[in-house]
């Protein structure tokens, strides 16, 4: 029983990583109705930016804030430069451009910072949290930051005019446009926010998985799994889904002998397919009805 408890808590700790990523995935899905396959690479580049600033001697928190700001700007720029001209292109073209972004960012990061694995500092320090030995300080901090980001997002969408405008632009672009909302800029804002959240996720994840240009692909997959589990339309659901994926992954790794350490990615696959088949809208998503 104690083992079970420990595994669940450890699962929650890794789940925090996925929850962060899932949140970024859902943000962009809300803005553009697509899954951004380059999301992980965007987060990776942001993390490298932060690492570079730390190397230059900038203290952690200023570097953190600066990275988030730069990532936000970067996300907006990517939307404006690359995706705005393709607004009406078919989905296939979008996916190809996501892939192109993926390879560009991955190879550029490898070119600038090379492919060796780098350690990344944690702002929360090392050692165990509250001396219980269940969670490290960093893991506890990670869970805390994820929940904080979620709360901020909720407040933003619930209480600000811009948040309301973004929701309107996402749910009905034409009407929103007629009501005087600049839908194009709302989409760009969505990209920026997704990039910023991705940056936060990247900087929290890097101390755990270490920093290298390929660190994000599998994490992105888990992020997708979490987002799908929680429902692609619901930020809170995505966070819950991310935590759940972490727990499921850990429990399956502990109690199902074949899986062990080697089948972790297929778990994400099975989860995604199972959720999509059984409950396509996720646990917290709303049913979408197609109009004929």
């Amino acid at each position, binding site marked *: 029983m104690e083992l079970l408890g420990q595994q669940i808590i450890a699962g929650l700790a890794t789940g925090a990583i996925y929850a962060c990523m899932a949140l970024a995935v859902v943000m962009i899905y809300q803005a553009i109705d697509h899954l951004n396959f380059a999301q992980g690479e965007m987060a990776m580049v942001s993390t490298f930016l932060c690492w570079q600033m730390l190397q230059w001697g900038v203290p952690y928190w200023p570097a953190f804030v600066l990275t988030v700001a730069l990532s936000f700007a970067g996300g907006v720029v990517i939307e404006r430069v690359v995706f705005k001209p393709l607004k009406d292109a078919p989905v296939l073209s979008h996916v190809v451009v996501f892939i192109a972004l993926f390879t560009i960012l991955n*190879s550029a990061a490898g070119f600038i910072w090379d492919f060796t694995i780098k350690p990344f500092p944690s702002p929360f320090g090392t050692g165990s949290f509250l001396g219980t030995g269940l969670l490290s300080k960093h893991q506890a901090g990670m869970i805390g930051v994820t929940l904080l980001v979620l709360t901020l997002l909720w407040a933003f969408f619930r209480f600000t005019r811009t948040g309301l405008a973004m929701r309107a632009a996402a749910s009905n672009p034409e009407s929103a446009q007629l009501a005087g909302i600049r839908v194009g800029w709302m989409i760009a804002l969505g990209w920026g926010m997704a990039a910023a959240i991705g940056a936060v996720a990247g900087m929290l994840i890097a101390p755990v998985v270490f920093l290298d240009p390929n660190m994000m692909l599998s994490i992105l997959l888990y992020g*997708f799994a979490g987002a799908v589990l929680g429902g692609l339309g619901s930020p809170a659901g995505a966070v819950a889904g991310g935590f759940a994926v972490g727990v499921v992954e850990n429990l399956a790794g502990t109690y199902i002998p074949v899986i062990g350490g080697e089948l972790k990615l*297929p778990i994400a696959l099975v989860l995604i397919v199972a959720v999509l088949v059984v409950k*396509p809208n996720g646990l917290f998503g709303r049913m979408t009805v197609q109009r004929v």
Partner: protein
Amino acid sequence: MAMETSAVRAVPPQPRGAMAADPGLWLGLAVIVALCALPFFVRNFVVFQMTMVLVYALAILGLNLLTGISGQFSLGHGAFYAIGAYTAAILMEHGGVAYFWTLPAAGLICFAAGFLFGLPALRLEGVYLALATFALAVATPQFLKLTPLERWTGGVQGIVINKPDPPFGLRLSQDQWLYFFTLAVALLLYWAARNIVASRSGRALLAIRDNPIAARSMGVDTARYKALAFGVSALYTGVAGALGAIAVQFVAPDSFTFSLSVAFFVGLVVGGVGWLPGALVGAAFAMYVPNVAEHLSKGLSGAVYGVILIALIYLMPAGAGGLVRAIGQRLTSRRTAGSATGGDRA
């Protein structure tokens, strides 16, 4: 249907049909002749590369049957390619089966795998299907490394197989023979694909692509056709995988990563979705453009590749197929000079 009848009514069918088929047919024959002649003039390594282009073309053709004809998405065809490759390698290594018999086996197994994956995928559309297949592609190498299967798959090391010798005492090098073998298989399967598209089932699939709800209300069994399309598509890709394994003489989990699926997908879009000959163009792109990118800049090859891709999407949003269609349309409208409004058939 409605579009077809109106087009036939507007234009006298005979000349239009003949004109549309003629240049295409001649061009096709010219391409085949060129493909047959080329291996006698180039080095063995180039022949090997051309074999791989044909193999990729076959895989992309499979993907095109899925995406272009039935309108479903897949970022995970590398998985079926891997299944085909492993089927061939395991049969040759452990079963002592001759290389040509591994193709039908790979095709059948992949058909089953594709059909089974297609069943749950039926309920998924657009983005969701892309996601499920993306997960499949990312998870494939880990499946192949599974310890319980190691006895068969060779684990991380993979399996080495021998290149077949040309039969009947033909005076060809191994590479040349394999090239012609691949070419024959590819032409056969291409012919089959054309017939599938032209058949009753093909029309049903096109109807599903264009408007699933209308198709269903006209009595098309959408579920069955979509799963079948997934199966057939996987069959093509699986046969390509088997041929690829024989050509490379080696299979290992890390040859079948996400980037392979991406290569197929990119090839599909570059060649033109829904235009079957585009598979060859897309395959050439998938094979050679990464090399070109590497040539331009060693360290930044991925970035160059990405920029080329984005440029292509901007310049030719419908791929090579769209370009050919646009040129064809301009030619026909010039020849018929106003008597027809240009072909509106995709």
